[in-house]
Structures are given as structure tokens and as C-alpha cells.
């Protein structure tokens, strides 16, 4: 090897970053596990070991069950919408056209602007009285004035609204990833398919789709993590309401652990994110590994 490796210098240069990450990621993670098996509360000075008591009590709480269901509904639902829409967008945005730069910027806005601020925009669009969507529905005579639905006030509509905002936010991210994947496919492959008489749909579904699978999985895996662990959208749109109907695991952990001072139960709730995170991490390593081998 040309440049001789220097393990000692390498370790010295790497150590600060690794220590920082261990202290601020691994440390708190272990502390969360410790809390989840204790009776820790804000203000309590003494801690007692309580075994699985916290897990038993959160499993019995109806709001935890709703939060688990919602976390999965929002994650799976938005990923389905995101993959369909971003696949179409990646196809229509791939070839250069006039104004593509501006269109790309506009399409990317939901992802690149802070989500807390985008969500406030939606809160205004979905306002109970002045919603522009309701105004349009009334103008089209689909609803009588003052009788349009309360988008964030009725449980089912609130769930649909949160799902919509999550999808809206992740479509740009997924689109650019898929675009990167499409540009990496050698141009002669779709051309050869065209010469062989394959039409648009055959080329897309039978030839390009299989080649795009690794990159689609990357988009879905990141999208899953971003949605499953997010509390910003729910916190700003509905604060978990009405009646806890849109609560997700992270927002419930915040409500119980920080606002309700019950650190132990809050830690137990956020730890229930872990199994899915582990699965996603495992799948991600497999995708990366397969891509390296081929």
C-alpha cells in the first residue's frame, strides 16, 4: 500500500468524534433503558427498580395502543403515497425541459424548509373556520356555508390530515433519491428496450423497476425512519388531539415523560420505537452490502 497506514494517528484523530457520539448517543440510550425499568419522575431524587412495571402499565393504556396504531398507519400509509407519487415525479422530472430548475426548487420546498414551519402552513390551510379547502368545497356547492368538515377536529379527518402532511413532506426527498437512481442507469438500457419494441409501460415496469429496487428500498427505509420517529407534524397540527386520536409514540412519550413528568413511562414509550429501528437498520445494511457486491 502506497500511503503507509498509521494506526496510532488514525486512532487519535478518530477518538474525539467516537467519544462524543458514545457520550451523547449511547449514554442517553442506556439511561433511557435504565429509566424504563425504574420509577423515575422529574423532581424525584430517589430511584427504585420496578422491573417490567412501566411496560405493563403502558401496554394497558388505551392511548399507548392508539399511538402504536397511528405510528404504523402514518408510516405505512405515507410511504405508499410517497413511493407512488415520487416514482411518477422522478419520471416526469428526469428529462431536461425549460424551467426545470425552478420546478425542482418548488417541488423540493416541503423537504428543505423546516417541517415545523411547513406544518404551521398546513394548520392554516386546514383551519376550522377559514380553511381554503373548505372555501373551495363551499364554492363548488359540495358543502353549505359553515358546514364544511373540521379537518383537524374530527378523529378520522385529523388522521388523514396528518398522513397527508407526512406524505407531502417526504415526496421531495424520495423524488430526488429516485431521480439519482434513474440517472445512474446507463442510457443504452432503455434505448435497447425501445429498439426491441418495448413501450413506455413495459420499459418502466419490466426493465427499469427491477433495476431501481435497491434505490427504492433506500428511499423507503429512510422515509420509514423519518416518519416513524417524527413528533413535529403531530405536535403542531393537532398536539395529539382530538382526544388523543392522532397521538404517535414520540408525541405520547413527550406528553407523558416531559409534560407529565413521568420519565419512566416516557422512556418506556420511546423505547418501543427501537424494534422497528433495528429492523430498518438491518435492512439498510443488507441493501448497502448487496450494492457493494454486485
Amino acid at each position: 500500500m502506497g500511503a503507509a497506514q498509521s494506526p496510532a494517528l488514525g486512532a487519535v484523530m478518530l477518538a474525539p468524534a467516537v467519544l462524543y457520539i458514545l457520550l451523547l448517543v449511547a449514554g442517553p440510550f442506556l439511561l433511557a433503558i435504565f429509566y424504563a425499568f425504574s420509577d423515575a419522575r422529574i423532581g424525584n431524587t430517589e430511584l427504585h427498580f420496578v422491573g417490567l412495571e412501566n411496560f405493563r402499565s403502558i401496554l394497558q393504556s388505551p392511548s399507548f395502543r392508539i399511538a402504536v396504531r397511528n405510528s404504523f398507519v402514518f408510516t405505512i400509509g405515507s410511504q405508499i403515497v410517497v413511493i407512488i407519487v415520487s416514482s411518477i415525479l422522478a419520471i416526469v422530472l428526469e428529462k431536461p425541459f425549460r424551467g426545470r430548475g425552478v420546478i425542482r426548487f418548488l417541488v423540493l420546498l416541503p423537504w428543505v424548509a423546516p417541517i415545523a414551519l411547513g406544518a404551521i402552513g398546513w394548520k392554516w390551510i386546514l383551519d376550522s373556520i377559514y380553511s381554503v379547502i373548505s372555501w373551495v368545497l363551499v364554492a363548488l356547492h359540495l358543502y353549505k356555508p359553515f358546514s364544511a368538515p373540521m379537518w383537524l377536529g374530527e378523529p378520522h379527518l385529523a388522521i388523514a390530515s396528518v398522513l397527508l402532511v407526512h406524505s407531502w413532506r417526504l415526496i421531495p426527498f424520495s423524488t430526488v433519491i429516485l431521480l439519482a437512481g434513474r440517472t445512474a442507469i446507463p442510457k443504452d438500457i432503455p434505448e435497447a428496450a425501445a429498439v426491441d419494441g418495448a413501450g413506455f409501460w413495459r420499459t418502466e415496469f419490466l426493465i427499469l423497476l427491477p433495476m431501481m429496487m435497491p434505490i427504492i428500498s433506500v428511499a423507503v427505509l429512510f422515509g420509514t425512519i423519518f416518519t416513524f420517529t417524527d413528533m413535529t407534524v403531530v405536535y403542531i397540527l393537532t398536539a395529539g388531539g382530538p382526544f388523543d386520536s392522532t397521538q404517535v409514540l414520540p408525541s405520547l412519550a413527550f406528553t407523558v415523560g416531559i409534560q407529565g413528568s413521568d420519565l419512566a413511562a416516557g422512556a418506556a414509550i420511546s423505547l418501543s420505537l427501537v424494534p422497528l429501528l433495528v429492523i430498518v437498520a438491518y435492512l439498510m445494511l443488507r441493501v448497502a452490502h448487496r450494492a457493494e457486491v454486485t
Partner: protein
Amino acid sequence: MQTSLSAHALRKMAHVLAITLFTVALAFPFYWMVVTSFKQNVDLYTMENNPFVFNARPTLDHLTFLFTHTRFVRWLGNTTFVGVVVVSVTLLFALPAAYSLARLSGRWGERVGIGIFLTYLVPPTLLFIPLSRVIAYLGLQDSLWALILVYPSFTVPFSIWLLMGFFKAIPRELEDAAMVDGLTRFGAFVKMVIPISTSGILTVVIFTFTLVTQEFVYALTFLSSEANQMIGTGIPIFLVRGDVYYWGGLMAACLIASLPIALLYNLFLDRFIAGFTVGAVK
């Protein structure tokens, strides 16, 4: 010929239609922020008014209110301050670590690199409860320094990952030549590698800064007083008085805070995407 021509025209129409439809749907909330920011209250809050047009003269009242009667400017300042410090801390940790992983470590370095990438998957919503106690123990509640301490825990891993890619792309011969000329390995890193990696470093700077402006959970948990907020928490929490939303001012604030961040991020987007798709795209 006739049929193929019309099929072509049809496809072109479908193309334009799809682009228009999706662009309008995705950008609409930001268009709505613009419209709302310049409308008088009497216009905003009259249900009979067509919300898509100005029914009364446009006004700058909401902007004036935002800049003179709220802490908005202060939040912009707080966010910039935290952003700049976190960027510096991130570079300090990530630059040497990435170089070490790219050049100075063999097989085990690859494993550490993957481990570091995986910590990027550990979300703030998993760690904020124990970290809130750590912050309290350190006496940093309601202080911007709490964020400065914690934010590098997610900016450093991704930055290491991005920089590793840049360093690996530098020809080894450059450093070898520098070392033959009498520089130590560390000297070659500081005097050779860092100067020719400015574009990679700039990418990390922008990425770190935008992550800081987009973060919500830690800022919500650690900060409490109005003067100490970041834009992401100050706007949704402190621009709302009781239950009353001042939509004009709120939308103006969202717009002003979002656009610069969006523009910056957009410029460097392709490189961030390269970081997300390592391996899966050739």
C-alpha cells in the same frame, strides 16, 4: 403517422399536466404563506371573501408587527448563533475522524464507519427524555448551550459519512508527495487535504446549518423562555397568544425563515443525496 403524432402530443400533455399538478400541490402551502402575509385581517377573516385574491389593499402590517412587536429577530439571531457554533464543533470533530476512517484505518475503520452511520438512525425522539435530565444536571435548562452540546450528536455522524466520501476521492499520490517533501502525515492532512476539500467542507457546513434550523424536538424540550427560542419553536409556540393565531404574522414568519434555508439546501442537494444513497447508486 397521424396516430403516432397525436399519441406523442397526448404524452406531452400528460407530462405537462403531471408536472403542473404535483408542483402546485407541493408548493401550495408556501404560496399560501405569501398570500396570507400581505392580506389585511379584515380580508383574511371574512368568510365570504374569495381567499385566492386580494379583496382589500395588500398590507405590510403583519411584517411590521413581526419585526417590531415580537421576538422574531431575536429567534433568527439565536438560530444563527447556535448554527455557527454547531458547525464549528462539527467540523472540529468530523474532519479528523473522516480522514482517519478514509485513510488511516483499514478493515476495522470500515466497521467503525458503518457504526457511525447507524447512529444517524437513532432519532432525537428516542433520546430526549434522558437528555433532558442530563441537561438539567449540567444546569443548562433554557440555555442555547444545551442545543450546542447536543446537536453535534446527530450532525457529526452524517458529516463524517459525507467527508469520508470526499477524502476517499482525493488521489493518494498528493499526500505521498507532500510527505516526501517533509510534511508529517498530520501536516499533510492540515496543509494538503483540507485546502483541496473546500467544496466538501462547504457541503458539510450547509448541511449542518440546515439540520440545526430544522430541529424541533430538543429545542422544544430544553428551551422554555420566549427570549431563548429557535425559529422552529418560537414561531409555533410564542407567536400564538393564548388560543389566538395571528395568521398574517405567523405565515410571514414561516416564509421569511424557510426561504433562505430552502435556497441554501437546494444548492447543495445533490451532494447530500449522494450521502444518503451510498452504495445503492453506482
